[in-house]
C-alpha cells in the first residue's frame, strides 16, 4: 500500500517535467521532419544556442525583463490600490453605486488595447501610457470581483456580529473585509494574467523596450529565434508572476485548505 502511494507520488512529480520535455521533443521533430509551417523555425537546440550565445549575457535582454515586470507590477499595484476600495464602496453605498456604476459599466467592456490611442494622447510619456493601459486591464476585473464579494456576504455573518454587539467599524474590519478576501484573490489571479496579456500587446504597439517589443523586433528583422526566445521569456515571466500571486493569496487566506 505504502509503495503504491510512493510510486504515485513519484509519478506525479515526474509528469510535469515529462510534459515539458515532450513538448520540446515534438517541436524538434516537427522542424526536422519539415512539418508544414515549421520550415522557417529553428529547433529548440538552435534556439537555446542563440539564447546562450547572444542573450544570456546581454544586459539589453535582461533589461527587457525588468522593464516589462516593472510595468506589470506598477499597473497591477495601482489597480489593486484603487480597485479594492472602489469595489467596497460600490458594494456598501447604494447612493454611490447609483451615481457611478453606470459609467463604470459603460467603460468596463472597452478592451484595454482600445485605450492605447487615447492614453498616448493623454499621458505625457509612453511609459506612463503603457502603465495606464496595464492598469486598465486589471482594474475593472478587480473592482467587479470585490463588488461581487461584498454583495455575496452572508446576512448571517453580519447579523451575528451585530447581535454580539460589534460596532460598525469592527464589523467592517473583522467581518466585511475578511469576507471579501477570497474575491480579492480571484481578482488578483485574473488581474495578473490580464496585465501580462496587455503589457506585451501594448509594448508591441507603443514602446521601444520590454519583452513584447523584443518579440516584435524579432519578427520585423526576420529572426525567428528571437521571436521564440521572446515568447518563452514571456511565458516564464507570466508563470513566475502567477505563482507569486498564488503564494500571496495563500498567506491572505490561511483558513482555506490548499492541496
Amino acid at each position, binding site marked *: 500500500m505504502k509503495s503504491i502511494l510512493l510510486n504515485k507520488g513519484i509519478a506525479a512529480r515526474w509528469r510535469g517535467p515529462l510534459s515539458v520535455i515532450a513538448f520540446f521533443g515534438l517541436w524538434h521533430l516537427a522542424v526536422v521532419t519539415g512539418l508544414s509551417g515549421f520550415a522557417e523555425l529553428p529547433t529548440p537546440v538552435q534556439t537555446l544556442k542563440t539564447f546562450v550565445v547572444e542573450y544570456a549575457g546581454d544586459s539589453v535582454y535582461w533589461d527587457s525583463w525588468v522593464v516589462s515586470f516593472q510595468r506589470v507590477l506598477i499597473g497591477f499595484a495601482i489597480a489593486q490600490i484603487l480597485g479594492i476600495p472602489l469595489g467596497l464602496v460600490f458594494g456598501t453605498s447604494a447612493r454611490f453605486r447609483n451615481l457611478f456604476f453606470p459609467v463604470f459599466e459603460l467603460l468596463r467592456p472597452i478592451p484595454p488595447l482600445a485605450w492605447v490611442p487615447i492614453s498616448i494622447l493623454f499621458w505625457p510619456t509612453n511609459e506612463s501610457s503603457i502603465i495606464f493601459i496595464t492598469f486598465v486591464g486589471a482594474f475593472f476585473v478587480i473592482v467587479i470581483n470585490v463588488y461581487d464579494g461584498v454583495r455575496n456576504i452572508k446576512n448571517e*455573518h453580519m*447579523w*451575528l456580529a451585530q447581535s*454580539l454587539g460589534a460596532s460598525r467599524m469592527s464589523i467592517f474590519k*473583522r467581518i466585511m473585509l475578511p469576507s471579501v478576501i477570497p474575491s480579492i484573490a480571484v481578482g488578483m489571479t485574473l488581474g495578473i494574467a490580464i496585465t501580462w496579456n496587455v503589457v506585451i500587446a501594448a509594448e508591441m504597439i507603443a514602446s521601444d523596450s520590454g519583452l513584447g517589443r523584443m518579440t516584435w523586433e524579432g519578427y520585423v528583422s526576420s529572426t525567428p529565434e528571437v521571436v521564440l526566445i521572446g515568447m518563452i521569456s514571456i511565458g516564464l515571466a507570466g508563470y513566475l508572476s502567477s505563482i507569486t500571486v498564488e503564494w500571496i493569496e495563500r498567506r491572505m487566506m490561511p483558513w482555506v485548505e490548499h492541496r
Partner: protein
Amino acid sequence: MNPSSGTLKGRIRISSLAKGYQDKDGNPVKVIEDCSVEFEPGLLNVIMGQSGCGKSTLAYLLAGYLNADHGNIEIDGRPVTGTGADRIMVFQETALWPWMTVTDNVIFGPVVGSGVAKNEARRQADELLERFGLIDFRDKYPSQLSGGMKRRVEIAQALINSPDIMILDEPFRGLDVMTRELLQEYYLTLFEDTRLSTLFITSELEEALFLADRIYVMGPAPDNIGQVIDIDLPRPRTFDVTASQRYLELKQQAMVYLYAGTDDGGGGATGQ
C-alpha cells in the same frame, strides 16, 4: 434546578405583529399578520410549521434583524428595537466566520462586543469548549470541523454571552440522523441544567416532541399561531420517552393540528 424559583428571564410578548414584503412584481405578500402570542420564560418553546409559514421571519423579528410593519415584541417588558446580546440566534446554516479559529469565533462576543480582556474570554471559551468536547479543536478553522461540531461551536459562541434567550432556527437541519439525535440530547441536557429560555424552530415533529415544553403550531398568515400543545413528558428526558404511551398520544394530537392547515384538510390526517 427548580424552574419556578427566582425570576426567570426571557419572557417574550408579541402583540399584533405584522410583517410582509413585496414580491418581484411589486405585489405585497403577507408573511405574518396580526400575530399575538406569549412565550413563557424558562421553557423550551418550539415553533413548528411547514417551510414558508414565517417561522424564520418571526425569529428574525425577535432577534432584531428585521423591523416589523406593525405591532411589537417585548422581552421582559422592554420593546425590541434592534439587535441585542440578550438574545442570540443559531442559524439554519452555519454562521461561523470561516476566517476565524474556533476560539476566535467563540470569544468574538465578549472581546469585540463587550470589551472583555482576551485572556479572560479565552479562559471562559476553554471552559465551554471543554464541556462540549471541542477543546482539542480550538485552534482549527470551521472548515476543518464536522457539521455536528460546528453546531456545538455555535452554541458555545452564543452561551459565552450569557443570553436571556436562545433562538435556534432549525439548527440541526441537514445533519445525519445520528449526529442530529446526539445534538438534540446535548441541547436537552444543557436546557435542563440551565432552564435557559429557548425558542426552537423546527419542521420535524419528532424533534419538537422530544425537546419541547410547549409546541406552537404555526401556519401561513393570517393564522400564524394556531394551536399550542403542552408537552407534559417528564424531565429529564431520554430517548426512551419516545416509546411511551403519552408520547404517542401527543404525537397523534400534534399531527391532527399540523395537517389541519394543509390542503388535505384535517379529515385525512386524523385517519392516519
